[in-house]
C-alpha cells in the first residue's frame, strides 16, 4: 500500500509537465464549476430576496363570511410554537379605502400592523426616507409615489374615506420607498389600532403573516402550521403555491446550472482518465516487472488510484482558489453604474466543500479505468521479447 503510494508519487513527480497539465485541467474545471454554481446561487438568492424576501412567505387568512379573524392572538401564538423555522409573525388588519386630496379621490389599501413585527417582514424602517414609523393612533405613513401624487409632506393630515362611510383624518409621520411602485402608490401603513378603527374591525384582524428561515421549505412548514392551528375558518397559504411560475423559473435555472456543472466534471473526469490510461501504457513494462516480482494486482491498481487522488486533491485546492479569483474579479469588474456588483456573490462554504469533494471523487473514479488496466496487465505480455 505505502509502496504503491511511493511509486504513484514518483510517477507524478517524474512526469512534471504531464502532472501539471492534468492538475491545471482539474483546477480549471473546478474553478468553472465553482464560479457558475456560485453565480447561479447568487442570482437566485438575489431574485428571491427581491421578490419574496420582503413579503410574507406564509399567511393565515380567514375563510368566514366577514373575512376576519377574531381569535388572532391565539393564531399568533400557535404560529410561533408551530415550528422553530417560523419567524417574524405579525397580525395585519387590511382593507380598502379611498384618499381624498385636492385634485382627486384615489383608492388605497389600509394596512395596519403591529409595526415592530411587520417591520421585520417588510423592512419599513429601511424604506423610510423621511419621518418615523406611525406608532400612535391616527398616525400613518405613505409611499413615495402617493406622497408625490397627493403632494403630501411629513406632518400633513390626509383625509381617508372608509368604505363604511364617514371621513377620517390621519397624520402622516413618515414617507417610505419599498422599491415597488404598486406599494408606494397605494399602501397606507399604520398601526393595528388605527387600521381597525378605519375599517371598523373592532378588535379583529384580516390576516396573520410570517416568514420562514428557509424560504424553500415554506410549503412544508405551512402544512405543519395548518395542522397545529386550533382556530376555525382560516386557511394557510404559502408563497410557493402562489408563485408557481417563479418557482419553475428558478428550478429551470438550477437544473441548467447543475447540467453545466455535471458536464464540466465529466470533461475533467475524462481528461484525467485518458491521461492516466496513457501513463499505464507508458509504464506497462515497469508494471509488468513489478508483477513478475510479486506485486499484487490490487497494489498495482492502487498506484493509479493514488495518482488520481493526489491529482484530484491538488486540482481541487488550486481550482477552488482559482474559482475564488474568478468570483472576486467578477464582483470587481461586472458592476452596476453605482459600483455594486451586477450579481451579488454569496460564498457558500458547503457548496465549495462539496465541489472540492466532487473533484477529488471524480479524479478517483477517473483513475479506476487505468487502475483496472494496470490490474489486468499480464507480466509476460509486457516482458515478452523486450
Amino acid at each position, binding site marked *: 500500500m505505502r509502496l504503491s503510494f511511493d511509486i504513484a508519487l514518483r510517477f507524478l513527480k*517524474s512526469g512534471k509537465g504531464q502532472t501539471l497539465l492534468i492538475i491545471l485541467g482539474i483546477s480549471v474545471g473546478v474553478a468553472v464549476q465553482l464560479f457558475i454554481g456560485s453565480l447561479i446561487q447568487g442570482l437566485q438568492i438575489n431574485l428571491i430576496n427581491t421578490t419574496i424576501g420582503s413579503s410574507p412567505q406564509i399567511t393565515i387568512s380567514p375563510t368566514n363570511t366577514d373575512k376576519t379573524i377574531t381569535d388572532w392572538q391565539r393564531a399568533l401564538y400557535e404560529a410561533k410554537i408551530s415550528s422553530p423555522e417560523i419567524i417574524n409573525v405579525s397580525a395585519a388588519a387590511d382593507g380598502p379605502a379611498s384618499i381624498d386630496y385636492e385634485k382627486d379621490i384615489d383608492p388605497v389599501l389600509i394596512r395596519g400592523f403591529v409595526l415592530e413585527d411587520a417591520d421585520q417582514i417588510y423592512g419599513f424602517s429601511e424604506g423610510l426616507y423621511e419621518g418615523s414609523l406611525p406608532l400612535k393612533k391616527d398616525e400613518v405613513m405613505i409611499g413615495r409615489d402617493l406622497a408625490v401624487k397627493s403632494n403630501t409632506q411629513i406632518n400633513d393630515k390626509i383625509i381617508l374615506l372608509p368604505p363604511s362611510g364617514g371621513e377620517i383624518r390621519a397624520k402622516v409621520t413618515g414617507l417610505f420607498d419599498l422599491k415597488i411602485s404598486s406599494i408606494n402608490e397605494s399602501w397606507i401603513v399604520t398601526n393595528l389600532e388605527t387600521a381597525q378603527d378605519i375599517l371598523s374591525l373592532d378588535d379583529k384582524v384580516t390576516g396573520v403573516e410570517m416568514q420562514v428561515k428557509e424560504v424553500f421549505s415554506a410549503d412544508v412548514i405551512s402544512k405543519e402550521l395548518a395542522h397545529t392551528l386550533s382556530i376555525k375558518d382560516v386557511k394557510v397559504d404559502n408563497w410557493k403555491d402562489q408563485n408557481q411560475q417563479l418557482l419553475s423559473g428558478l428550478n429551470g435555472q438550477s437544473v441548467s446550472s447543475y447540467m453545466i456543472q455535471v458536464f464540466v466534471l465529466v470533461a475533467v473526469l475524462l481528461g484525467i482518465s485518458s491521461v492516466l490510461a496513457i501513463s499505464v501504457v507508458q509504464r506497462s513494462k515497469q508494471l509488468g516487472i513489478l508483477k*513478475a516480482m510479486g506485486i499484487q494486482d490490487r497494489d498495482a491498481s492502487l498506484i493509479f488510484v493514488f495518482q488520481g487522488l493526489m491529482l484530484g486533491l491538488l486540482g481541487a485546492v488550486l481550482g477552488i482558489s482559482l474559482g475564488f479569483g474568478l468570483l472576486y474579479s467578477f464582483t470587481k469588474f461586472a458592476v452596476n453604474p453605482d459600483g455594486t456588483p451586477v450579481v451579488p456573490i454569496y460564498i457558500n462554504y458547503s457548496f465549495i466543500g462539496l465541489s472540492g469533494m466532487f473533484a477529488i471523487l471524480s479524479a478517483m473514479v477517473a483513475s479506476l479505468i487505468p487502475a483496472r488496466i494496470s490490474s489486468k496487465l499480464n507480466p509476460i505480455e509486457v516482458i515478452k521479447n523486450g
Partner: protein
Amino acid sequence: MANIIELKQITKVYGEKIKTQVLFDINLSFEPSSFNSIIGESGSGKSTLLNIIGTLDKPTTGEVYIDNERTDTLSKIDLAKLRNQTMGFIFQFHYLLPEFTAKENVLMPYKIYNYKVPKEIDEWADELLNLTGLTKVAHNLATDMSGGQQQRTAIARALINKPKIILADEPTGNLDSDTTENVYAILRDINEKYKTTFIIITHDQRIAEKTDRIIEVKDGRINLDLKK
C-alpha cells in the same frame, strides 16, 4: 537431494480457435544450487518453458512443482507471493523503474511485502551493489547509468529477497561481449556463494558451455540434455 524444480508432462497450447502447441510433454527437473542453461532457436518454446517455471504462465496440462509445492493450481495472489519470495527474474531488458535510484530499485522486491526496510536488509542491498560493482552509482536514477550498470542493477534486484531460484531470459542479450563476461562472472559467483539455482536462457554458445547443464529445446521438445 530433492529437486527444487519439477515439471511433469507439461504441454502448452496457445490460441482458442487456431491452436498452436508450443510445448509437448516436457518432463524436466532441476537440482538445488545447479547452474543451468536452456538453448534453442527462437520460437522453439524455451521462453515459454521459463515463464511456466517462473509461474508467469500456466501450462495447458501437466504439473509444476517449485520447492515441492505445486504451483499450477495456486491462486494469483499466492503465485505473486511465491514469485516474490522464492524467485528472481532477470530479463533481456532491465525494466528498472526509471523514477527510482539503483538502490531503491534493488530494494523494490523486498518493499513489495515489507514497506519498512530493516538495517540488515539495507546492508544486504549495499552488499549486492558492491558485488555487482555498483556502489558508486547506487544513488543514481536508473536512467543515469550505462546499459551494463542497469543490467547489473536488475541482477542485484533479483537477489534481494535471497531467492532459491534465479530465472534469466537472455540476460546479456543487450550487452557487449566484455560486459557479458562480467555479468556471467557475477552470476556464477552468486551461484557459488549463495547456492542459488540458476536457469539461464541464452543463444550464446560460449556462455552455455560454461554452465553445468545445457538443455536444448527444439520444436517444443527437449532435444538435448547435457550434464557436465
